[in-house]
């Protein structure tokens, strides 16, 4: 639940999602759900010459299960807050 809430706070920010097939998609975070499925708007593939498979796609839904990394804007991360929250979660509430 923690990371779901965390990603909800990032809605509207520009992120890069790297998938488990090495494809990296950059776009504005539109929404996230409980499975950490991600919807991006104004998307573009990071290496379009190598991966022209999504040239006519501008909005997309990415299944949470295929996400390897989400690269975040540095100002979108409050490291101290996240530290505290993850420790609290690890202790069991």
């Amino acid at each position, binding site marked *: 639940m923690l990371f779901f809430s965390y990603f909800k706070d990032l809605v509207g920010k520009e992120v890069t999602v790297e998938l488990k*097939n090495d494809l990296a998609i950059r776009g504005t975070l539109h*929404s996230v759900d409980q499975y950490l499925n991600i919807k991006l708007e104004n998307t573009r593939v990071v290496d379009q010459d190598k991966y022209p498979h999504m040239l006519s*796609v501008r*909005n997309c839904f990415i*299944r949470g299960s*295929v996400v390897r990394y989400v690269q975040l804007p540095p100002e979108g991360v409050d490291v101290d807050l996240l530290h505290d929250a993850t420790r609290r979660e690890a202790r069991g509430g």
Partner: protein
Amino acid sequence: MSIGTGLESLVDQTISIITNDGRNIVGVLKGFDQATNIILDESHERVYSTKEGVQQLVLGLYIIRGDNIGVVGELDEELDAHLDLSSLRAHPLKPVIH
């Protein structure tokens, strides 16, 4: 749970799916569920290769199991109309490795 996360807004629109085995299937979204199982009508597969342009294989009505779905993209018809698929060359996408 949160607003607008599902695929409701894409129903009856042309979408482009990337499957976990690296295939690209384009068709009209007719239905979906919680597990991202998808019903696609008038679908075709776009086969990428480095030797020749993109080949389109007609598939028809398809159900794709959610487990096997990576990305669901909204196909911008105008951008797509301007794509010259016959001259587009690329390696097929790699399969998803969990």
